[in-house]
């Protein structure tokens, strides 16, 4: 395997961006829109782990497109419209998670690798929340306490919990298939 820059965007990245986005869209649609009461009420969007995981495994750009485009497509499926600043926030979550490569990720299992990924997931969720909140304040004219009450509680906390629990599960599973490619 030849070392590529984490910013390169070749065919492989195109494919995994597309798969990540489609997967994110379909899973959010299936678990949210169809009201499969997955994991009670806390985790109403387990799919949010997908862009973060694709970021960790395939790099920040793939993470970004998975989240950004996945959220757009998810909204297309459910008919909720098009919300650029929320799509961007989803992209940011995948992007920041993908920056974990810079912290020297050496594989996808073991406490140290998982811990590093978790740190970047937390940062990603917070940066994304800040972006979304700033946009809401600008566009909708709400103030900081209101945006915390209407956005922080219902989105940030579930995103954090889902990401922190599901991304490691996916990483460990991916570790088992990662060695099978000859590239």
């Amino acid at each position, binding site marked *: 395997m030849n070392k590529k820059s984490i910013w390169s*965007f070749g065919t492989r990245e195109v494919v995994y961006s*597309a798969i990540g986005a489609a997967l994110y869209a379909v899973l959010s649609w299936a678990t949210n829109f169809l009201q499969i009461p997955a*994991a009670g009420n806390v*985790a109403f969007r387990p799919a949010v782990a997908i862009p973060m995981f694709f970021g960790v495994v395939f790099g920040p750009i793939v993470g970004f497109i998975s989240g950004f485009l996945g959220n757009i497509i998810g909204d297309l*499926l459910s008919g909720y419209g098009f919300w650029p600043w929320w799509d961007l926030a989803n992209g940011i979550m995948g992007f920041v998670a993908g920056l974990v490569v810079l912290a020297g990720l050496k594989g996808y299992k073991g406490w140290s690798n998982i811990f590093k990924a978790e740190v970047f997931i937390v940062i990603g969720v917070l940066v994304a929340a800040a972006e979304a909140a700033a946009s809401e304040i600008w*566009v909708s004219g709400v103030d900081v306490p209101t945006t915390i009450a209407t956005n922080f509680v219902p989105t940030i906390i579930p995103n954090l919990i889902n990401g922190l629990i599901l991304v490691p*599960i996916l990483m460990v599973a991916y570790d088992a298939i990662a060695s099978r490619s000859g590239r």
Partner: protein
Amino acid sequence: MLVTWQYRIRNSLMETFDPRARWIFSLIFLVSISLFWDVRFLAVFFILAFAWYASARVSFKETRRAWVLIAFILFMMIFIGTIITGGGAAGILPEKTHPVVIWNWTVPLTGWPIVFRLTYERLWFALAQMLRVLAISAIFVIIPYSMDPRLYGFTFRGMGFHDRVAYSMDLAFRYVPTLARDFSVTLDAQRARGYEIERVEGGLIAQIGKIAPLIVPVTMNSIISGEDVTNAMDLRCFGIKPRTWLEKTDFHRRDVYLMIFTGVMLIASIVLSTVFHFGVFWMPAWLIPA
């Protein structure tokens, strides 16, 4: 499980515009309206937004779910904004406001004070907020119903995105039905092993972990297939030179008019709000009690 796009051909006025022109109009509309808190200007934007919305010929029944969600969020914004901040509204309202009612209340045991302070300005601002959020919603809610998914890649290419990024979009749309089918197959396969997604038990981690039997196979399967997809694309020369896009839409005269209108809207908005300061909060003088 079959996914269906909300889009279908409706022979509407909106569809006679080029998708690129529609995207640009929608995004510039967002920028323009965001420069105003003056109800008089917002009303103009509001009318424009719903005229645009109506031109798509989408029935209310189809979009009801989205509007219910928007109504809920709007209600929360106004309600919580009113209760918690009592009319500050992110520094948009003037410092001196005129209360309608003020209630002071203390939370039992903790002793936290809660002040409910409803002002005339706050009520008027709520109207502005409502006009603005609904107008933006009208512009964006209509997109899934009026934009052909197969034109996304081409449209974004036409708006200046790189071929590869634009093709990611096309490819993502291609995988949506496949992955939805995979998801339902996996759901069935696990149910055949006694898995009951609807059964809620255990602590928080156990509950969220319960989605693993669904999410892991679908994700890993798609990653494994990605290797073949990459090969298939490389073998057909993806990304080695600028590609021809078979999908094609044409910019007609009406698209040019729409773009001119969009440009005028943007410039006028910038000039009115920054030079003439029309963007700030405004309230009819007769409404403010002496």
